[in-house]
Every structure is written in structure tokens, then in C-alpha cells.
């Protein structure tokens, strides 16, 4: 019976049924396809409301990401660690020939900062970011990374509720334990729909016992720059008294 139903579905798909067609979305794990872009997104998002308004699509043609040397460090690649929290600096260098140099440091007062500056078109020679986890030299971020920066900039421009306020209002805290994942949802044209940041927050009462656990709460950044909190819930609960093991059937 079920297989006959499948046949009907197949025929329907062939001939086309009005109303059945729906925009298809898919999820992309940015950590996997663009680790540098994910790193940058994770650094920017907590300070999205500080992003400069001059960041626009037309001057993000060549944006590079690099782990930047902090003051006092000796190597080319920065790395600072305070307790269990992770602090790093990044440079975003939008290529905007002839438009002059602008600089802005986000969170400059803290040990973690994001530096954004306009540079010249020499940046075009910087190689594109690859899916290599070990790439640490400057590289141009991917289109997905660019889309996330633009969404975050929209947040700043729109003076929307800040992530910090939203987290506080929901009674959540920042999570410094879980793996940080950036999951991007795009439509059939690869246009950004929203970005989910996993492992960024957790509830005060949530028990995350196992070392690879992550919170049910996820920070979502919409393409219009709005933040929201998503709670992931199990789609079905099981009553152990009602199940039969295969050997009991």
C-alpha cells in the first residue's frame, strides 16, 4: 500500500501538482566548508551592534581573514587564552580602492577584539579561504562568510535588539564549554536565509554533563540582521513502558 502511494507521489512529481512546489532550503556547516569564515562569524556576532555602517556589499569584494598578532605576541599568528575562555583577534580588510583608510576596533577595551579596516586593492591577491582547518595565513572569505558579515552589519544599521540584551532577557548565559558551530541555511539559489550559532549560549539550569554536549538553545541571525533564540526540542518522546524490544515481539 505504502509503495503504491509512493507511485502516486512519483507520478504527481512528474506531472506537477500546483501548490506542492515549495522553496527548498539546505543547511551548510560553515566550520566544514570555510573554517576561517566560521571563526570570523563567531568573533563578530557578539559585537554585531558595533559594526561600522560603511560595510556594504560593494566594498566587501575582497575581505580577508587572518588570525592577527596581538600586542606582545611574537609569532605571526595570534593566540591568547585566559582560563578556559578563548580570545583572539581578527582583521577584516574590505577592499575599497580610493576610498581612504578607515579603522575600527570592536571590543578594544577587552583582550578580545575585532579589527575592521579598509585597505587597497592589493588584497585581491590574497588567496581564497579553503576548507583546510590549518590555514592561518590571510585569506579572502567566501561568499557565505561575506553574507554573514552583511547580515551582522544590517543588525548594527537597524539598531535592533542586541544579542547581549536578548540573551539576558531569555535568562541565558554565554557558553564557554561547547563546540562552536556555525550552521548556515540557504535557499535553492544559495541565498542566505539565516545563520544558527550553536554552542554560543546555554540556559542557567541546563545540565551539559558529557564533554561533547551542546545546549538546546541556539542563537539565530536572520538575513535582515535580527537575532532570535531557538530552542531545539526532541520531536518525539518515548515511554519505555510502551516499547517492545524486537526479541519481545
Amino acid at each position, binding site marked *: 500500500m505504502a509503495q503504491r502511494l509512493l507511485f502516486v507521489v512519483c507520478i504527481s512529481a512528474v506531472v506537477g501538482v500546483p501548490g506542492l512546489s515549495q522553496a527548498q532550503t539546505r543547511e551548510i556547516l560553515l566550520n566544514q566548508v570555510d573554517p576561517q569564515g566560521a571563526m570570523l562569524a*563567531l568573533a563578530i556576532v557578539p559585537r554585531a551592534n558595533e559594526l561600522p555602517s560603511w560595510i556594504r556589499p560593494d566594498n566587501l569584494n575582497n575581505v580577508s581573514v587572518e588570525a592577527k598578532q596581538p600586542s606582545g605576541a611574537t609569532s605571526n*599568528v595570534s*593566540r591568547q587564552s585566559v582560563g578556559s575562555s*578563548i580570545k583572539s583577534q581578527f582583521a577584516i580588510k574590505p577592499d575599497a580602492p580610493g576610498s581612504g583608510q578607515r579603522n575600527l576596533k570592536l571590543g578594544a577595551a577587552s583582550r578580545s577584539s575585532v579589527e575592521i579596516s579598509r585597505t587597497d586593492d592589493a588584497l585581491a591577491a590574497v588567496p581564497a579561504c579553503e576548507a583546510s582547518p590549518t590555514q592561518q595565513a590571510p585569506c579572502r572569505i567566501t561568499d557565505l562568510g561575506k553574507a554573514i558579515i552583511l547580515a551582522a552589519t544590517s543588525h548594527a544599521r537597524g539598531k535592533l535588539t542586541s544579542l547581549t540584551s536578548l540573551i539576558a532577557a531569555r535568562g541565558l548565559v554565554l557558553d*564557554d564549554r561547547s563546540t562552536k558551530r556555525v550552521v548556515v541555511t540557504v535557499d535553492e539559489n544559495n541565498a542566505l536565509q539565516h545563520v544558527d550559532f550553536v554552542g554560543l549560549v546555554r540556559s542557567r539550569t541546563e545540565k551539559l554533563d*558529557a564533554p561533547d554536549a551542546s545546549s538546546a538553545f541556539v542563537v539565530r541571525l536572520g538575513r535582515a540582521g535580527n537575532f532570535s533564540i531557538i530552542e531545539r526540542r*526532541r520531536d518525539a518522546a518515548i515511554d*519505555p513502558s510502551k516499547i517492545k524490544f524486537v526479541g519481545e515481539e
Partner: protein
Amino acid sequence: MRLLLLIQFAFFSILGFTPAVAQPAPVPSLLNVSSFMMPPRSSWATIDGSADASVTVTEHSGEGDVGFRVFHLRAAVKSTKQAAQDLARSKLLQPGDILLSFRPSWDKTLAYAHMQLGVSHSAVAFVVSEANDRFIMTLESPISYSSPLNYPEHYSDLDAIHVIRPTLTDSQKRNLEQWGRLILTKRGRFEFFGDYGVPMYKRGIAGVATPRDEIRYLAEIALGRKNASFKSYCSEFVWNLLGLRDCNPTAFDASCIKPIFSTSDGMLTGIIPKVSGDAGLVQGPEAALIGGKVAADRSKAILTGSVFVDVLTNESQLAGRMSSGHIKVAKDNRASMRAVSGYYAMGEPPPMAAQINQGVTANVSPTSFIIRSNAGLDGLRYVGTIIFDR
């Protein structure tokens, strides 16, 4: 082309026939990891293929005779009961199978993560039904994770799951199911223990002084004979449960206890030189390379140059690949990893292995199950790796 495929699918649907043969294909990008993380083909279980079109099977090769057999599920079913239903219909999993949470993102990071072959967690799978709805149900520690693969705080962010199969008779499967039911009905008695470096038999629990005592302790708590909690980390729980496979709970006698690993105490030490007849906690990569028939000099180069080395140290980048807890454990074990690298660099001298083992407490990690499978030990077989990419 699309029309042709749809008609073909419709034809198969009417006939009740499902194409099931594993297809060779390019390695899915998610599983494009170093070959030492792949199981040797000699360790693969024989399977019949998928019995349901919702799960397809492909096979992939790495360097040497290693690779993945991939069970492709739909992306939309990740962390939903539907995934457990699809897998049950596929008949690719059996009661008592061990599920290992595989983190491909651990590849090319820290030596300790490489040594663990990217495995962060373990569970036991059962096939169950509820009102004619058949699905896979896990039993694991934390006990709250026990679910039809839909516990959000674990399965939402789990991209790949290895399936390792112990050799079990029907009677052993039924015994495990009965223990599973007892544990599920006493969920409140099961707690997670977070320090993987201190096995239960080293925690000063009265009557639990050896690994075998742990298995008896589990039985006594499940049977309600002990008014205590069973506190275990994930692999400890799986190891103890499988140790009861010969025990019928309706007539429990401790003489039936049999650890799943055939070592002297049932748990693993650190290193067995050349993986001869045994395999230790650090030898997953070595066992994969040996099983994969990789030449000795090449194996040595991989072990000293790619496995037991920290490749990625930028903490911001690491934060996108593993939890701070795992990063801390990896850092805490840096000196040990250097010692193991030195052991391989010196040609695996037995006295050095003995010296390293002196600092190792016999234990069982989630990786242990695939280490033993890689080494062809204890009847453990690699079945496949579940991903959600369709």
C-alpha cells in the same frame, strides 16, 4: 533524466523492490579525513545492504586498504525519530550494535583527538517498536541521551555515527534487551560520571575493586538489589552492559559475567608492541594502518608526523572543532602524546611500551571498541558510518 529516474523509482515501488547494493562513489566531503581514521576493510562486517530506499549505502577508500561504508540518511531526518525509523527499516543495525559518535572535525587538530580517531561518545543500539512503529532506540550514559536518535543536546550536532558490531548470538541479544529494559525502568539510578581518567573500579566504591566488579554492580543495580546509583561515563556504561550479554537477568549469577574485551582484566592498557594479539588505548591509528596494509615505513611516518602531533593550535579555530573539555584533555595529555610519538619513532621497543604502560590505568574509552575492531579482536566488526547528507 529526472523523468527517467522518477519512473524507475515508481516501477521499483510497485514491485516492492529496493535497490540495495553499495555503490562506489567519491568520499563525502564530511568524511574526507585522514586515512588512519578509517577502518581497515578487513574489519568490515558482511551486510545485506539497505532494505529501505530511505537509506542508501556507498563505499569509499582511503590510503591503503581502509575506508568507510557510508549509510546515507536524509539531511531532514537528523536528530529526529524519523532517522531511527529509517534505520530500523533499512535493517542495517542489529540489537547490541555499538554506536560511536564520530567527529570528522577532529582530524588535523590535536594529537589526543587523532589518537581517539575522532570518536567522542559511545552508545548501544536496540531495535524496538511501539504500536507497530519500529525504530532504533539507544541506551547510553548520560541516560538522558537514550532516545530514538533525537536527544537534542547530543544528536542535533552529531554529523556522523560509526556502527560497530559485537558478535552476538540471538540469546545474547535477548539478554541485552532484558537488561536494557531493566535499566530504562530504573533510569533514575543511572548518572553520568565526567572524569574519563578514573574508572569506576578506582573510585573507592564498596565491592567494586576490579573491572569485573563493575559489571556485577551494574547487574545488581538494574535488578534493584543495590540501593545505589550507577555512575559511569559513556564507554564504561557500554562496556559494562555488553559484559552482561551471557547473563539472563531472571536468573542472574555473577559467573556469567564476561567482559567484551578478551584481555586479562577485560579492559585495555596503553600499548601492545606491534599490536600482536592485543591492542591498547593509544593504538587505534596503528591498528588501522596495519589492517590497511600500509607499509611499515609509511606507517611510522604517519604515526610520528600526522597522528601523534598537534597540527592545529589556534584556540579560536579549535573552538569550532571540539569542546573546551576535549581541548583541555588533549592539552593535559600532550606529554603522553609526545612519549607515544617517540615510541613509534624509535621503532616500537617493548621496554618503552612497558614503561609507558606503567603510567596507564586499565580503562575503556569510547574509541576502544573501534580500536579492537581495527585490530580484528574480540569479534568486533565495523558495519558502517551514518551521515545525513541526502
